[in-house]
């Protein structure tokens, strides 16, 4: 049954960093099981959550992500013995830092999704998408990207407009 899809005024951009062994496989399972979830998420595959550098999360926000998901194997299930344990500490610290500089942590979700948890993948992605949709666009980094030091700004508005319209 194809229900009429609700139109939203804002479609958030969600970037997901996932490990290949658990969450990527879990997302594959969601596909094989023909589960449905919002199409906002873009998945980047890593060997392990241990490979995910906090800079990538920062970069994702800078590139216009409205929400970021980081997901890997449950503790003890890491294909690489302990990568997810290292990641867990790294992100526990990093989210505190982001929070301190004023990033709303509702936009940054961490989860453990195993290869068997297609349903959990759907739930996590749907929840984050809905939550971020309700929050509206992540304006902070986008605005920041447009800002210049005063001396580097192009003074006249029409020039700026023409220039940015490229």
């Amino acid at each position, binding site marked *: 049954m*194809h229900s009429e*899809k609700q139109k939203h005024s804002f479609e958030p*951009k969600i*970037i997901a960093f996932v490990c*290949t062994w658990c969450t*990527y*496989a879990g*997302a*594959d399972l*969601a*596909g*094989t099981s*023909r*589960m*449905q*979830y919002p*199409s906002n998420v*873009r*998945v*980047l*595959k*890593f*060997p*392990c959550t*241990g*490979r*995910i*550098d*906090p800079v*990538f999360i920062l*970069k*994702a926000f800078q*590139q*216009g*992500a409205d929400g970021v998901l980081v997901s890997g194997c449950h503790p003890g299930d*890491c*294909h*690489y*013995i*302990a*990568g997810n344990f*290292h*990641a867990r500490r*790294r992100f526990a610290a990093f989210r505190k830092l982001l929070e301190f500089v004023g990033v709303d942590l509702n936009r940054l979700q961490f989860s453990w999704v195993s290869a068997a948890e297609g349903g959990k993948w*759907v739930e996590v992605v749907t929840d984050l998408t809905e939550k971020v949709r309700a929050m509206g666009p992540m304006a902070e980094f986008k605005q920041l990207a447009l800002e210049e030091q005063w001396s580097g700004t192009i003074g006249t508005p029409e020039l700026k407009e023409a220039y940015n319209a490229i």
Partner: protein
Amino acid sequence: MSRIGVFVCHCGENISRTVDVERVAAQVGKLPGVAFATDYKYMCSDPGQNLLKKAIIEQKLSHVVVAACSPRMHERTFRKAVESAGINPFLCEMANIREHCSWVHENREEATVKAIEIVGMMVERVKKNRVLPTITVPVTKRSLVIGGGIAGIQAALDIADCGHEVVLVEREPSIGGHMAQLSETFPTLDCSQCIMTPKMVDVANHPKIKLYSYSEIELVEGYIGNFQVTIRKKARSVDEDKCTGCGLCMEKCPIKKIPSKFDCNLGMRTAIYVPFPQAVPNTPVIDRENCTKFKTGKCGLCQKVCGPGAVDYEQEDRLIVEPVGAIVVATGFDLYTINEKPKGSMIKGYGEFGHGKIPDVIDGMTFERLASASGPTGGKILRPSDGKEPKQIVFIQCIGSRAREKGISYCSKVCCMYTAKHTMLYHHKVHDGQAYVFFMDARTPGKSYDEFWRRSIEEEEAVYIRGMVSRLYQKGDKIVVMGSDIAVGVQVEIEADMVVLATAIQPQKGADTLAQKLGISYDKYNFYSEAHAKLRPVECATAGIYLAGACQGPKDIPDTVSQASAAAAKVMTLFAKDQLEREPIVARVREAGCVGCFYCKKVCPYGAVEEKEIRDRQGNLIRVVAYVNPGVCGGCGTCQATCPSKSVELDGYTDEQIVAMIEAL
């Protein structure tokens, strides 16, 4: 400039039903660097692959993106295809527009837009892909087996029978392990020593097995195919080459009252001894702590009587280095120490059951020695305290096991069965005796196991009481056992002559230290961790190391032997090739940027990071940098995320590739 080819698969209708594949190909074709973009019904089919190969040649493509199913499905297929058309397989990427797109979204417009972005992302990624060479490492076709119990013996024999040399290391003076101590074995009640000793002899006589008894692992270096193992051969004080095993030394030894560990302290041995008559090697060892010669410098009788002159008081520990390509760990188990809480242990101990205080409260292994025909009582069940035959005997199961509050939450797996066996042995030997068993549940899965257990009740008249024992104390020459029968809901009190505790199985002492030497992981109880609980149950996550027997978890003999043979099969699989090939997803260090903080080394789960000295032409040390051994690296990339200067990079998942993907969004 790259010339990327993009191939969008319809997957029959699986993709094209919701994704406008023509539009995806058209849009992606406009991306910078894309030279060719097309769509096709089934890319993985032969015609699809031929289309791909043809386009690579005709369009002079440098990189390929196949937009189709999950890479977990067909990445190998397409990488092989591009390789056959002359492109390095790692210059081909898959964009998952089926599992992650067409199958999970209904709206055609949304799915198409998403597919375009997914493919665009992979296009940017593939631009940054580098040619990766296949990594090969040589294989030393010798293996090390650690532990000479039934698991180690089985694995060693299987590998050796296949024609590969085996180095077998046993900590004790003789191989045989716990199985040599058992009387009879469930579910068939065949004599343990009768089936065990021939295998021990096979080991001793096998031309491909090099046995180091009374030896321990000192150091393990290297990686799969190329380990260097240092073995400490402890001073035996008897030259194995000269000794004929006549036993005269033991006969003459004046120190005869040392409790025998093999006999669970029920029997006595001499200061120069073999643990049991069928020992392999049949070479005595001097217990230097108890030997008069070593304590006072006097005596020396054994040396005097030894015809071949094998006794050597000056012998020292020797370190021997053995190169091996694979390691089987079969260190087995130990019984739960039940008296007091061991220092620094999470295990609390079962002081309340009187073990160690009441002489007639014994553990299961002690009962095995009492029941064994070769044991200290010649197979008679007699009380250690007064040598009387116990007429009432109580067996208590789950001592330590399945008791979270006591520190162990797992089931020891074999106790239900061996207790059932004990009741039978008891009944066979003490016909007028009565056995009682306190149990939580009887766990008897296994071929003929439940039948065996039922036999103990139905034919051998053991009384099973469901419930635990709350208290136990000595009263005269009886032991009063107070417990509850929860099935009936009454308190039970039994005046027993002997109590046998089915204590939990634990890994051998020092299992953690050995694991650290081997670089393998272990759980909180020190059982070694397998690479995957279901699909890789005999492999360690550390490549080239395999597990057999109870060191990985409680196991009975059939399971242990199966796992040992499985481990041997894994070793033989490894040895079937001269060179090991592995996926080149490994970390590499950019030495120019490395400042030697070794954060990579600290976080590497594989111990793959080494310290490498950089010297100038005169040989002066300039600095020390990290080096990742590609044979050992597992490819998780934790090092790269941790490296402050990103001077270590995981091939196949470089920062450039990932950032390119993020920037494509």
